[in-house]
């Protein structure tokens, strides 16, 4: 069927699928550009990659559909987005798509009036999902673009006006959000939405058979391993080299063979990561496909889990399912080990730059044997996906303790141990964990990704930035100065303990040297250095 969505007054499910596909592709092509629109010059702004993962999951849901009704396609696409939602923008995108699908209902054909209704429904749904909507974000772009819609215009005209209005609105975001203006950028989430709409509008993507989710190998840095819910089995990674490799087909096959699947690449190189009970079929498939296999890494998670269980003591193994248990997001082997050590029941790998999806949280909640779960997102961009997951499921009581850093999460875990020792109830445990977070200051030391002027600080690229409780507070050319400056902002009078969590590549011995030097000027506070292994932040420091 050769239906041109731009000239026809109505379109069916197959065409809508093709249009969605084009939107996904256009976002995928612009991941790097969207990532760069990071307000803060810190390396964990990943709106682009988050939107990519959200939309890729949505696309996966409809990729093999052959469906007449637009309403059905939109509903499935929205469901996929909801499952794949990562980061704040991804979560809002999933809400927009859900509202859009709600607006279509079971409609077989998309007409101009229906399209306008669905867009309004999308915006209403997205606003309702955010407890404190902030203007100058993806929400504003979505809302303002509605104003261009007209019942008198054709679907094609409406789509064109929508894209134009979205562009205008996006350019105005710095005027609404001073942070954007200071950083000299437009809103990244809004940019993502614009890309999605542009893709949909682009005329050249009329034939659905040409639609493929493209590779993202052009990204500046390697695509991060997405989150993987802790489970037994094998962790399998390999690289397939060849010609005319079919990324979508590899992904589809791997989905059958395991879980936590990530497949990225292009026709000549495909990177595969999955967890499976048996590594053989995945490797077998890769070899049989004619590709050359390289960089094969297989780890037995069962043995790793058993080691941990042994270390936790036999009693922990024998104990029945607890009443309350914790799911935490943690990045870095050391950090994950600390969370396990403090009796965190499941760890979702992820965090700065690798936000887990709503689906990851849903899986973790489902797999958790306890009837009451507590989720520690441990990053500001993860809170929403966790909240969405908690509200989507009804099988268990799930509460979020909205921790925004791993050190905060660790303090919450210590409070969890303390609370379970005291044998108190779920609500009281949650309250104790929240109180513990409030008593901790966190300093994150990271490197500036570009020049910037923020909070009155002149920041140069590669400077070490000290982020104090989420706000950039100091910049210096070395870690020690950045940390000293940051410590000066914290009232350490009533503090007793500073814990230095060493990131990947930052040695404990270096941290100990740093502590010795800090002790020359800082009195009355104990220091402790432990291995965290987190990425992007050479040091995370908690002061309590």
């Amino acid at each position: 069927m050769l239906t041109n969505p731009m000239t026809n007054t109505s379109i069916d499910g197959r065409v809508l699928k093709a249009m969605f596909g084009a939107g996904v592709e256009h976002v995928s092509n612009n991941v790097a550009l969207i990532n760069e629109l990071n307000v803060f010059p810190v390396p964990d702004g990943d709106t682009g990659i988050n939107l990519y993962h959200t939309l890729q999951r949505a696309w996966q849901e409809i990729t093999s559909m052959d469906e007449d009704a637009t309403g059905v396609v939109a509903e499935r696409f929205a469901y996929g987005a909801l499952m794949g939602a990562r980061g704040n923008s991804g979560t809002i995108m999933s809400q927009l798509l859900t509202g859009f699908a709600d607006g279509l209902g079971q409609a077989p054909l998309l007409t101009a009036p229906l399209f306008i209704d669905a867009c309004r429904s999308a915006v209403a749904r997205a606003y309702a999902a955010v407890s404190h909507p902030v203007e100058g974000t993806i929400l504003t772009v979505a809302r303002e673009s509605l104003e261009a819609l007209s019942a008198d215009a054709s679907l094609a005209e409406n789509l064109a006006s929508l894209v134009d209005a979205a562009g205008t609105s996006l350019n105005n975001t710095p005027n609404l959000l001073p942070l954007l203006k200071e950083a000299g950028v437009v809103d990244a989430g809004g940019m993502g939405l614009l890309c999605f709409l542009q893709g949909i509008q682009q005329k050249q993507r009329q034939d659905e058979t040409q639609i493929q989710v493209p590779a993202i190998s052009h990204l500046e840095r390697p695509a991060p391993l997405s989150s993987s819910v802790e489970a037994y089995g094998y962790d399998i990674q390999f690289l397939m080299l060849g010609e005319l490799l079919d990324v979508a087909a590899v992904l589809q096959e791997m989905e059958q063979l395991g879980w936590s699947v990530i497949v990225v690449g292009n026709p000549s190189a495909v990177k595969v990561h999955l967890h499976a009970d048996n590594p053989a079929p995945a490797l077998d498939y890769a070899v049989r496909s004619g590709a050359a296999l390289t960089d094969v890494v297989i780890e037995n998670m069962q043995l790793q889990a058993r080691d941990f269980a042994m270390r936790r003591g036999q009693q922990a193994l024998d104990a029945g399912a607890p009443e309350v248990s914790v799911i935490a997001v943690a990045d870095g082997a050391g950090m994950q080990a600390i969370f396990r050590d403090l009796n965190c029941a499941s760890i979702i790998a992820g965090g700065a730059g690798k936000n887990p999806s709503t689906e990851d949280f849903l899986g973790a909640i489902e797999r958790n044997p306890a009837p009451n779960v507590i989720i520690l997102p441990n990053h500001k961009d993860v809170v929403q996906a966790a909240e969405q997951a908690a509200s989507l499921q009804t099988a268990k009581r799930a509460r979020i303790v909205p921790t925004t850093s791993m050190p905060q999460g660790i303090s919450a875990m210590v409070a969890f141990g303390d609370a379970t020792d005291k044998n108190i109830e779920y609500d009281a445990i949650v309250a104790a964990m929240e109180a513990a977070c409030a008593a901790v200051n966190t300093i994150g030391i990271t490197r500036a990704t570009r020049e910037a002027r923020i909070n009155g600080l002149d920041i140069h690229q590669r400077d070490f930035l000290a982020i104090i409780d989420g706000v950039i507070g100091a910049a210096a050319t070395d870690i020690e100065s950045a940390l000293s400056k940051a410590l000066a902002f914290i009232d350490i009078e009533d503090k007793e303990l500073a814990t230095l969590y060493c990131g990947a590549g930052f040695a404990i011995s270096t941290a100990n040297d740093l502590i010795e030097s800090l002790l020359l000027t800082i009195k009355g506070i104990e220091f402790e250095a432990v291995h965290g292994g987190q990425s992007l932040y050479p040091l995370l420091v908690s002061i309590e």
Partner: protein
Amino acid sequence: MTSRSIRIAADSVCDLPAELRDALGVHIIPTYVNIGGESIADDGRQLDRARFYRELPKMESQPTTAAPSPGDAASFYREILAAGVDEIISIHVTETLSATLNAMRLGAEAVDSDRITLVDSRQLTFGMGMQVWVAAELAKAGADRDSILAAIEQVCRHSKVYAIIDSMEYLRRSGRVNALAASLGSMLRIKPVIAVESGEVSSIGRLRTWTRAEQRLRDLVHEQTPLDRLAILHVANRLGAEKFLKSIQDIAPSDTLVIETTPTIGTHIGPGSIGVATLNRNWRQ
């Protein structure tokens, strides 16, 4: 009928200060600390507690602790009875954590089990000491066996032992309370607050800083008021113990004791730790 003379016996884990022991005529059988190849009796003479705790952090291998032998127990009882005592009430460290009670039972059977009543204190350190203290006062005042045993039961029910462990290192090395050590985690510095009750040691709190742990300990003492008796316990941390006592001066009885705990316990929880043994006034009801 003249009342039968009853003496109280106990093992050295009860931490009864020497002055009280002598004043109340309590017989103490030492437990042992094994350091390297040497087995040293905790009798207040062979083992210098201050020196032991000073050296503990540097010891290459973890010292172990040992119960007296059944032979030791038999001669211990023989000696007391030979002095003209009619009956012995023998109070011991909880059977769940020590072989002492069993050795004492075998010793008693070898001597005269009809005249020796064994009591499992279900406690450690001065939690057990509270029972010995009260029992010895009653025995000295001429109380009969049944009323002494009833009082011991009452004291057991109304006394608590809590402690802050300064470093998890020793608990982990000792292997004596594996499940507890395992549940507390090992990667971060954590100050557990533990309780001894019914022969079990359990963690009842985990704090990251000493100040918060001390506050928790204070709260726990307050829950036990009004206090009949109180002992502040410490492992090589007299200053810390006295400072803590000062912070609860308003609720502490005037005869509050400050006691350095036996190496039999200190070996497992490590230098720096402080604790309390409380006895609520309701024990007399």
